[in-house]
């Protein structure tokens, strides 16, 4: 357990010290919100209707953007090799890194949603729903992302292929994520979303650890 928390603490500390990474991601996230009104016109009603979907797409793209860093740095400096001999199994290490990655890439976005809500003319109700559905859905996105990052860690041009691989897998998350926002019967969609997140973040560390083992062989 000490190793688990030490790894999360290290990743957080490194990111804070290097600085700006989380900020860049938030900036990207907000910038999508700025771009969209230019692309589809500044009609408030239309913006408000599209807003939840735009927020989800922005979150999804931001997640893809940060993906390559998840294992790449540790692979480059040899840490990943040594993680195999840590006091905890590689699966737990992947889980710890995934949690740290969620804290660094998804949590700042959740904090930044109010800005996007104002830009996209969302009312309080749909902002709240959007944030809640992001909270439930992003763990699944990050877990699939960890899998994609692990699978492509030994590829130099992996940064490009990982999104292509995990995009189809993330489709159900997006379906239920957006479904949970649009009023009416959002209860089942929220439950589905929570279930997907739970299942995916449970099994993804195993698949990702397997991929990392293969990549080192």
């Amino acid at each position: 357990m000490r190793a688990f928390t030490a790894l999360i603490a290290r990743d957080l500390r490194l990111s804070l010290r290097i600085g700006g990474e989380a900020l860049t991601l938030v900036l990207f996230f907000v910038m999508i919100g700025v771009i969209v009104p230019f692309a589809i016109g500044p009609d408030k009603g239309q913006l408000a209707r599209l807003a939840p979907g735009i927020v989800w797409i922005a979150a999804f793209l931001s997640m893809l953007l940060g993906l390559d860093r998840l294992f790449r740095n540790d692979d480059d400096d040899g840490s990943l090799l040594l993680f195999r001999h840590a006091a905890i199994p590689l699966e737990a290490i992947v889980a710890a890194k995934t949690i740290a990655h969620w804290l660094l890439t998804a949590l700042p976005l959740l904090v930044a949603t109010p800005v996007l809500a104002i830009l996209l003319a969302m009312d309080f109700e749909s902002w709240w729903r959007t944030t809640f559905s992001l909270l439930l859905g992003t763990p699944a996105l990050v877990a699939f992302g960890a899998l994609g990052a692990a699978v492509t860690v030994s590829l130099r041009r992996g940064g490009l292929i990982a999104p292509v691989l995990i995009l189809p897998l993330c489709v159900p998350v997006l379906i239920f994520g957006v479904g949970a926002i649009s009023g009416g019967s959002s209860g089942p969609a929220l439950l589905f979303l929570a279930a997907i997140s739970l299942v995916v973040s449970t099994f993804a560390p195993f698949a990702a650890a397997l991929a990392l083992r293969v990549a080192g062989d």
Partner: protein
Amino acid sequence: MTLDAAAKKSNWFSRLAHPGQFLSWSRPLVLPLAVLSALLFAIGLWLSFFASPEDYQMGDMVRVMYVHVPNAWLSQFVYGVMAVSALGTLVWRHPLADVAGKAAAPLGAVFTALALYTGALWGRPTWGTFWEWDGRMTSTLVLLLIYLGIIALWRAFDDQLRAARIVAIVTLVGAINIPVIKFSVDWWNTLHQPASIFTAKGPRMPLSILTPLLIMAIAFTLLFLTLHIVSMRTEIFRRRAETLSRQAALSAEAN
């Protein structure tokens, strides 16, 4: 920590599945399979065009079904083949499993694309639209994307041995999509009709329509098997050729 490399089993299966053995026993299969497939296509096409009645509901559009359903079936069957190969790669580390998985991916992608294409052409007159975001069409599109991703991943690796195991992991994870396609019609019932051949109460269509459909499905499946065997043989030869040319490069360096 005790590491023992897996002892070589020598049952009939592992002997047949040895790449060299596979090359010799698969060779005489190709021509008969191809001929049989062509024959069934001829019969199936004749039946579906001239010898089958119009459906009381769909009218003559039922004839599109004879090419749509076999391709839809293959899109999932081929993924099943790839998933089993992936297990073979990960669990038994069988070289032939790598080859089978790699050879199947482009074939599966083509059949999936055809399923979508014929589906769109069938949808236009019956539903009034080429494309609808309903559960089964969407999940089939996702399946096509997974196929393309897997092909891209194969091509991204130089080392095919490592690629095989990593692609196998992705293939197995992507297999979640297959049950989603299967049940999407029930979960998310919009336009696409529910299952009508494999139901608990038996097929829900008259024999005059079922017969050409089955013949076409078998013909397409045999076509896939033929192409798969040929592609696997090609892949084995390709790997040999690559080994040889690397060897040639090495010995050229030495001289």
